[in-house]
Structures are given as structure tokens and as C-alpha cells.
């Protein structure tokens, strides 16, 4: 690593360390939004393993997020009267999400990729149907009302939801979560980078580029694909658990198809298979709704005197457009990885 890169890393580290306090000056809401953006980075990195590395289109990714979130909510809330510590629940959530991933992937992964897309789409919907209806005859998920009063992360009396003052700085709940999320994100990035260069990572890429050839080279394609699917699912599960703890409340409404599409759009925008690109895509798209809220609303009110198109709708239209335009004009993403660009270019010559 040369000196320039070192300076760059130190600068980024300083900016990230100071960021929440600057944001807190503007408003605590912005810290929360940043936290959600980091959460979406985690989700996109998880989906990136499935879609980007292994080339499997997963349209129900948010279901694994939901599984993780509900695991946390049910094991740490007054709903069942259970209050397990988070470091036990997060692995449980990841394991359960992983199990769901394997159950879903096992029958479908040996088939052509498009089947997987539609099965995962269905799976996402089914999970929501179950979350909505598993309140009778035995109340498990509390139905559409969702689970409330979920415990925040707590470690020996140190709670992540309370405000504390240290060295004259106020560490509010969201700011503490920010640092925690940042650490988790860092760990996940390291795992991803290491995975990418590992034997498994190369096997994924080989399958993505040509499954038949990969198989001929001795890769057990089904197992390796299953591994990608399970790994992506467990990352989703962990992110879900953190989401539940941060929000303190979850309901099936948070886990609709649109959320899956949003995470997919983040991965596609950043460039499938490109870790840094995906993070950039996630950050970019996480802030779009906020930017729209502060620009489009006043603009429309100024121009027409009332709100004609809600920012939410514009956001969805933009996501849809992003998916189409990216595939048409920059299929390898805004920030393409080298091999990915070559692959898409080669594809067009057929």
C-alpha cells in the first residue's frame, strides 16, 4: 500500500468518525437516515454475493431480512416475554435465515436461473402472508400490528438506546448505533473482499460467466450456488436483526416486494459484483427519498401550488428507470469492475 492510499484511508476514517456529530447538528433524523443507509449497505452486500458474484437473481431477498428481524423481535421483546441478549439472537437470526435460504434454494438452484427469480419473488410474498396471518390460532407474529417494544442492543448495563456524555460529546442512541453499524459494515466488507478472492469466490464468478464450463472444470455448481444463496441469506438475517433492534418496532409492512427491488436496484446501480460500487449504490439510493423530499416537494408546491406527484412515487419511478437504463447503457454498473465489463461486452457479440 503506498503512502497516498494510506492518507486516503485515514481521511475517510476521520470523516466517518466525525460524521454523526456533524449530522446531529443538522438534526438527529439525519443520523437515523445514515444508519438506515448503512443497513442498506449491509443488505446490498449480502445480495451482491447472490446476484453479483454468483449471478443468481433473487427477488425476495427482503424475506431473509424479515426472518432476521422477526427472530430478533420475538426473542427480545415483551411479546413472548423473552429477553435474550443480542449476541445470542443475531447468530440465531442468521442461522434461521440461512436455513430458509437453503430450503428455498435446494429445489430451485439446479434449474435455470430465471426459475429462481420467480420462486424467490413468490417466497418473499409468502413470507409476508405468513407474517400477516400467523396471529391465529396461536399468536406468533402478532399479525399486521407487528411487534413493538423490542429491546435495544444491551451489553452489561450499556444500552445502545440511552444518551451518554463522554469527554463533552453527547453520544445519543442513534450515534452509538452508527458506530456499531460501521464496525459491522467493516467486518462484512472484509468478509466480502476475502470471499471474492477465495476459491469459493472464484467458483461463483466462474458459474456466473459460464455454468456449463464451470461444471466441466470440476465445480459442484449446485452446492457452490447453494452456498452463495445461504451466505447472502444469513447476511440479510443479521441486517434484519439490527433493523429490529434499532427501530424498536417491526411489522410486515416493512418487508414488501418493493424493498427487495430497492436493494436490487442498489446492487445493479453500483455494478453487480463490485463491492465498493455496491456500497456507493446503496448510499446513493438510500438518500434519494430524502433528497426528493427536500427538492421535489417544495418545487412542486412553488410551481403548482400543491403536491402533484408524491416523492415516494417519483422514487419508485426512478428505481424502475434506473434498472432499465443501467441494463441498457451501463450493464456493468456506474462503477464497473474490470472483469464484469469484459463479460457484458463479450455477451453482446453473440
Amino acid at each position, binding site marked *: 500500500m503506498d503512502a497516498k492510499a494510506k492518507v486516503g484511508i485515514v481521511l475517510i476514517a476521520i470523516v466517518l468518525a466525525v460524521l454523526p456529530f456533524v449530522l446531529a447538528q443538522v438534526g438527529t433524523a439525519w443520523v437515523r437516515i445514515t444508519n438506515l443507509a448503512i443497513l442498506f449497505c449491509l443488505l446490498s452486500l449480502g445480495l451482491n454475493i447472490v446476484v453479483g458474484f454468483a449471478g443468481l437473481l433473487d427477488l425476495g431477498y427482503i424475506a431473509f431480512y424479515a426472518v432476521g428481524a422477526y427472530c430478533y423481535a420475538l426473542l427480545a421483546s415483551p411479546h413472548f416475554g423473552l429477553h435474550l441478549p443480542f449476541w445470542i439472537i443475531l447468530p440465531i437470526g442468521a442461522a434461521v435465515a440461512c436455513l430458509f435460504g437453503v430450503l428455498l434454494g435446494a429445489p430451485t438452484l439446479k434449474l435455470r436461473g430465471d426459475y429462481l*427469480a*420467480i420462486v424467490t419473488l413468490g*417466497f418473499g*410474498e409468502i413470507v409476508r402472508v405468513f407474517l400477516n*396471518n400467523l396471529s391465529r390460532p396461536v399468536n406468533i407474529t402478532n399479525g399486521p400490528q407487528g411487534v413493538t417494544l423490542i429491546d435495544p442492543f444491551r451489553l452489561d448495563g450499556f444500552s445502545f438506546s440511552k444518551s451518554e456524555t463522554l469527554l463533552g460529546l453527547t453520544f445519543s442512541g442513534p450515534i452509538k448505533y452508527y458506530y456499531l453499524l460501521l464496525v459491522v459494515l467493516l467486518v462484512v466488507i472484509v468478509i466480502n473482499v476475502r470471499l471474492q478472492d477465495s476459491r469459493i469466490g472464484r467458483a461463483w464468478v466462474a458459474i456466473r460467466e459460464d455454468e456449463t464450463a464451470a461444471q466441466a472444470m470440476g465445480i459442484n455448481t449446485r452446492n457452490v450456488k447453494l452456498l452463495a444463496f445461504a451466505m447472502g441469506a444469513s447476511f440479510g438475517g443479521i441486517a434484519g436483526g439490527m433493523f429490529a433492534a434499532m427501530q424498536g418496532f417491526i411489522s410486515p409492512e416493512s418487508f414488501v416486494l418493493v424493498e427487495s427491488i430497492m436493494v436490487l436496484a442498489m446492487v445493479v446501480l453500483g455494478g453487480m459484483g463490485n463491492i465498493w460500487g455496491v456500497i456507493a449504490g446503496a448510499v446513493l439510493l438510500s438518500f434519494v427519498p430524502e433528497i426528493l423530499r427536500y427538492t421535489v416537494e417544495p418545487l412542486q408546491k412553488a410551481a403548482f401550488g400543491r403536491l402533484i406527484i408524491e416523492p415516494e412515487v417519483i422514487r419508485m*419511478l426512478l428505481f*424502475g428507470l434506473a434498472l432499465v437504463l443501467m441494463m441498457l447503457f451501463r450493464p456493468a454498473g456506474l462503477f464497473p469492475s474490470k472483469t464484469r465489463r469484459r463479460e457484458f461486452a463479450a455477451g453482446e457479440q453473440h
Partner: protein
Amino acid sequence: MEVFLQQIINGLTLGSIYAIVALGYTMVYGIVQLINFAHGEVVMIGAMVALTVIGSLAGANTGMPPVVIVLAGIACAVPVCMAVGYTMERVAYRPLRGAPRLAPLITAIGISIILQHLAMLIWSRNPLSFPQIIPNPVFEIAGANVSGVQIAIISLSALMMLGLTALVYRTRLGTAMRATSENPQVAGLMGVNINRVIASTFVIGAGLGAVAGVMVGTYYGIAHYTMGALLGLKAFSAAVLGGIGNLAGAMLGGILLGLVEALGAGYIGELTDLCHVSWISTGLAERCAQDGHVVLMGSNYQDVFAFLVLIAVLVFRPSGLLGERVGDRA
């Protein structure tokens, strides 16, 4: 027995709608090996356009007989959906022919999101009630009720299936379509204009989807901008059940899926009534004595059946009921 017959009739109605939508999926898949994710949205747009036309004609006191108004609704919905289908193919799929398979799947998702939210902008985010202007007489057959709308849906679907079969097996366009699905390169060499054939496949599928949209709207009496997603998923399951790419398969799969869903919804409550096994715990026995039923899964799980069918088919017979096994084209 009456419940059984009633659910059979409901299932046939639902099934013929699924079959018509499934045809749209299977035709496109057969010819370009692409799952047209946005097909459900085309069906939704068909329902919405028809709703608008029927609503305004019925409200304008034109004195037209109701049947003519409904036909006018269909006549407007079909070309609109065809135009949507054509544009979709031109903009989002054709430029990506030959690109990695993931690419058109992702544009399809994008198109579907765009169509949904455009529809929401045009027709509001709330469910709209579909104008019920045709008198809907109810006949009683062996204790089961059959409504006029159900008869109309079933017979219209049968007619369209016949028409499509004739188109595919009796006309020049149909021959070209079959040739293109066998092998596009060779068909091109034989003088088939592949682009035109593929575009017509999308257009025909969209036209069928439009009619299906009107049928769904009339049957449930409601239309919503998100109605296409679940319907599309179910119809796709039907197409896979019958063997994707196979016309007769899509029809068979649709009807079967409709029957499974209707019978499932009719009987799942009874089947999962825990009171059959009330001996397993005294608490359960008490609740049974009190309420009579402790239903584990009610008919609100109806939407799950299509998905279970899809998984089961993929596990046990991935090529579907009538499909043949094909290897990956290199």
C-alpha cells in the same frame, strides 16, 4: 358435495383467467426464453383501461346496452395493452437479446415497477370498484350457484384459446412463430423476419392479457394498481405447471391451478382444524368445546397454494406436465 361442486365451478372460472394470462408468459418464453415479469402489469393496465371506459360510458347515459359498453371496454383495453407490450419489447428486451440472461430479467423488473407506479399516478392508489353494469343472473345447478359472469368468463376464455391455437397452427404467422422458437437463427435464414415475429408474440400475449384483466376486474368487482403482481406470479406458476413454452400446457396448468386454489381455499380450514386432534392437549380440547373450531390455516392462505404448486413442480417434474426436457442452448 355442494361445496365441492361450487368450488369446482369457482376454480374453473379462476383457472380460465389464469390460463389466459399464462398463455402470455408461455408464448414469450417459448420464443425468446425470457420470463416477461411485466406481463402481470399489462393485465392490470387492461383492467384499468376497461374500468375507465366502462365507467365513463355507463355514466354518460348514452343509452347503449350494457353488453355493448363492456365490449367497448375490452375493445379499448386490448389495443392499449398491445401498444404497451410492443413498446416494452422494443425498449427493454430487444436491445438486450444476446446479452447475459440476467440483463433482460432486470429490465423486466424495472418495467414492471414503472408501469405499476404510472398506473398508480393515473388511476389513484386506492382500489377502484369495477362497474357492474351487466345484470348477473345466478343459475342453480345441482345445488351449486353459477353466475352469468362465470359462464361468460369460461366461454370467452375457451374461445380465445381456440382462436390462439388456430393462429399458431393454421396461419403463416403461427408457422413463423413456431419456427423462431425452434431455432431463431435458422428461421431467420429461411426468410422469417424474426424481430417482427417476436414483436407480434409480445403483442398477442398482451392482447390476451388485456382481456384477462377485464375478466378479473369483472369477476372480483375490484381493480388495484398492484393487482398484476400476484396474478402474474400465479399465472407463471400455471405456465410452469403445464410446461413452460407449451401452449396446451399453459391452458391445462391454468385450469388445474385454479381448481387447486379453489378447492384448497374451500377445504383448508376443515383440513387444518386442530379439533380433529383435540386429544393432544386438554387446553386444545377446552377451546374446541368452546369455539367448535380451532383453525390452523384459513382461506387467507389461498395465495400460498400457487407457490406450493410451483415448488412441487420444480422439485418433481421441472419440465412441467406437458413440457419436454430441453438442455441449455450453448
